[in-house]
């Protein structure tokens, strides 16, 4: 069982300024959206791994990825069935649908699904860092600094905090129902929906009670007193952080430059392109990936330097 909860593992990544991590996540997302070539996307996905490993969140990452793979499989299958572009026909369905024409499965359709799955994997992989390696209170501070309204940020942060409590609640209620002879997974579809609905009612009702209690407790500690709020801890940006940010931004800039100079594009339709990179293209790509990975390296160096 993996608990989907932030826990401070004290790694260099956990210790790093949240702005650096947020910038890095943004950087991976931008690059993932920028490039089309499956080679670029695959390597980009893989290049998020050092950060995951350095933050020691691989267990959480794996469980998220299991879900992501399922999602990707869905994308590939659906795209293969729906897209009838592409010229390498693997299977032609023996019937036709009005307007859409005769459905067929093409190599291009499948490969497009695969390519875009890689894009999705890179983005999800980067977001696990947001979930498991950025302190929620720090994230909140960063959001407030970014001029988002404090109350909305607080509500969002609170709602994520109470997700584990909600899961516990649901488990307990389901156990209670089972102890009264309810078989949750028995019966037809309608019966099962009814069974699960019987969990939803107490769950909802308990959550409402909880919401009132939390609000009461916050009110008692002067939440929303009208004054401009101060902050006990602030996000200090050190010179080291600025260096890391500079590298992260430069990797975005370098990526944009590569893309503009024609690298990393890819054509699926009508005929899938062959993947071939020139020696200089490979070099450039590796430089880019190295730039993306300067964050964990510099974070490590920074920790070393601060200890000396």
């Amino acid at each position, binding site marked *: 069982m993996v608990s989907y909860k932030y826990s401070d593992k004290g790694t260099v990544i956990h210790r790093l300024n949240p702005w650096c991590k947020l910038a890095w996540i943004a950087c991976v997302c931008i690059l993932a959206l920028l490039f089309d070539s499956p080679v670029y996307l695959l390597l980009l996905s893989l290049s998020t791994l050092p950060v995951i490993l350095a933050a020691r969140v691989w267990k959480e990452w794996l469980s998220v990825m299991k879900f992501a793979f399922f999602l990707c499989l869905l994308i590939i299958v659906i795209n293969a069935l729906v897209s009838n572009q592409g010229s390498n026909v693997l299977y032609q369905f023996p019937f036709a649908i009005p307007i859409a024409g005769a459905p067929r499965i093409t190599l291009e359709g499948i490969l497009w699904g695969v390519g875009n799955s890689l894009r999705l994997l890179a983005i999800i992989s980067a977001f696990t860092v947001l979930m498991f390696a950025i302190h929620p209170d720090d994230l909140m501070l960063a959001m407030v600094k970014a001029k988002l309204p404090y109350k909305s940020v607080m509500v969002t942060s609170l709602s994520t905090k109470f997700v584990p409590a909600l899961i516990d609640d649901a488990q307990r209620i389901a156990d209670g129902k089972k102890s009264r002879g309810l078989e949750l997974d028995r019966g037809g579809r309608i019966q099962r929906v009814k069974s699960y609905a019987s969990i939803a*009612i*107490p769950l909802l009702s308990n959550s409402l009670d909880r919401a009132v209690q939390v609000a009461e*407790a916050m009110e008692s500690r002067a939440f929303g007193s009208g004054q401009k709020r101060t902050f006990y801890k602030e996000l200090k940006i050190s010179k080291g952080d600025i260096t890391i940010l500079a590298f992260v931004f430069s990797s975005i800039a370098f990526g944009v430059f590569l893309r503009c100079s024609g690298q990393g594009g890819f054509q699926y339709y009508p005929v899938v392109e062959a993947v071939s990179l020139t020696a200089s293209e490979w070099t450039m790509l590796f430089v880019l990936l190295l730039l993306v990975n300067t964050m964990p390296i510099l974070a490590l160096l920074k920790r070393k330097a601060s200890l000396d």
Partner: protein
Amino acid sequence: MISIKNLTFYYSGNDKSALRDINLEIQDGEFVLLTGPSGGGKSSLCRCLNGLIPHFYGGKITGKVEVNGLNVMKHSTKELATMVGMVFQDPENQLVTVDVDRELAFGLENLAFAKEVIAKRVEEALDTVGIASLRHRATSELSGGEKQRVAIASVLALYPDILVLDEPTSELDPKGAEDVLNVVERLNDELGITVILVEHRLDRVVAHSDRVIVLENGMITADGGPRSILSDGRVSQSGVGIPPIIKLAQAVKSRGMSLRVKRSNLIDDTPLTVKEGRIALAKTLRHSKPCASRHSEFFSPVIASETKQSHLKPLIEVKNLWHVYPDDFVAVKGINLKVCPGEFVAIMGRNASGKTTLVKHFNGLLKPTRGDVTVGGINAKEATVAELCRKVGYVFQNPNDHLFCDTVEEELAFTLNNLGVKGGEAEPLINQTLERFGLTQYRYQYPRFLSGGEKQRVALASILVAQPQIIILDEPTRGMEYRLKAELMKFLDEYRRECRAVILVTQDVEMVAEFSDRVVLLSEGKIVVDGPKREVLSQALLFSPQINRLAQALKSYGVPGDILTADEMIEALA
């Protein structure tokens, strides 16, 4: 100083007053214990003190509440936050940040204190409450007692003059409760903070209080010093749990013996602590003639559990049970246990000692990792929860987790329906069960709107309508007022006499002492002791009832050392 004049309050949409004609003055530095039956208005009164009523909870309010000269009606909860600190019942639902130190800073941040001031006050509050070692921990990882202390520290950082605690220990285990109450007492002693504490279990805190106020039906029915209030017969009739020591003192006095608590007190007085009781009783015993029933080592002969069990076929048989959770936590380590018909077994132990894990095997909610569990002849490993629930009823702690139907009747019918008992067959069973639990008048009401005790009865009825041979209750008395507890226990006692078994997971020593007959003590997933309650509880330190601590100390006067309850003590002294 708090001054309340002619306060009456109705929650909106409710024609029954939550508070009626309250007149009260509380001086600075007082330690006030607020008690009374649930639904009596304790929480409502607390909410009036920091303006949650009427600013957060709307309703009709008349009268006047003044805190340090400020009229609560005109000043918001936020303004009052620096005067009145509120700590609530559920430790989960009052912490809003991830880290302990930020939690302490939360109120100060809201009030826009400068960063330096916040840092200083967080530091102070951590030390005052004695939780400096927790400062960097995540609040979600803390135990209940630790969370509650964080909650206290977080209001303390606002420098309140008054601390209001609404049943702060009802969700905690005895150790956690002890830690929290120690802190509260110290704040009152050393910092002179006025404390208003709502509590059901008085034995632990009564000695420290200056004043006890009893609230019933929204009215103050008793108000005065703890010794006079608790020895007042009317108060004990209202359902307030009178500590066993005081009950004993009352009985001793009614027999014409005098009790002297302190040397200076020449008049009769009521002991509040074990120590006072010890001194008083020792004096009384020294001066009175020894009588026949004394001078025995045991109150009643100990019946060896084996001889009692041998002639009956056990309902539950556990053989070398191990349970490992998916996160590799080994919760139960090689447990062997037999439960026979007619037994009332209390399973005790610290938090996370494996109590709940063990009993969840009895109705199939958990399956053994290794070993065997046989329930009524069925191998629980292969049976589903639904199959086992004909034999085993499992009642969870919080009745809110049980109830979801539109009426009380449907709640009962739901269980029967799942077991395949429908329509005409179910009708008499439902009627009978409703009758038995005194729920007939609530038959068509929405169960979640009933009071706490009624909800508990509906939850119990919804399980027992299936007439299981074994009933398991997981911490049923936590946060329950005394009268309801006693009612529940009496019912369970009747139930097991019908050749059924009752298994109670609990940390409530006094209840176990009074009602169960066998205690299984767990620690770190293993059985430490398993035996008759008299044997187990009279040889324990933390797990011994108040009266037993007294009996142990009075052995030299010929008082049997295995006495557990006030009634037994009275019998032995007679």
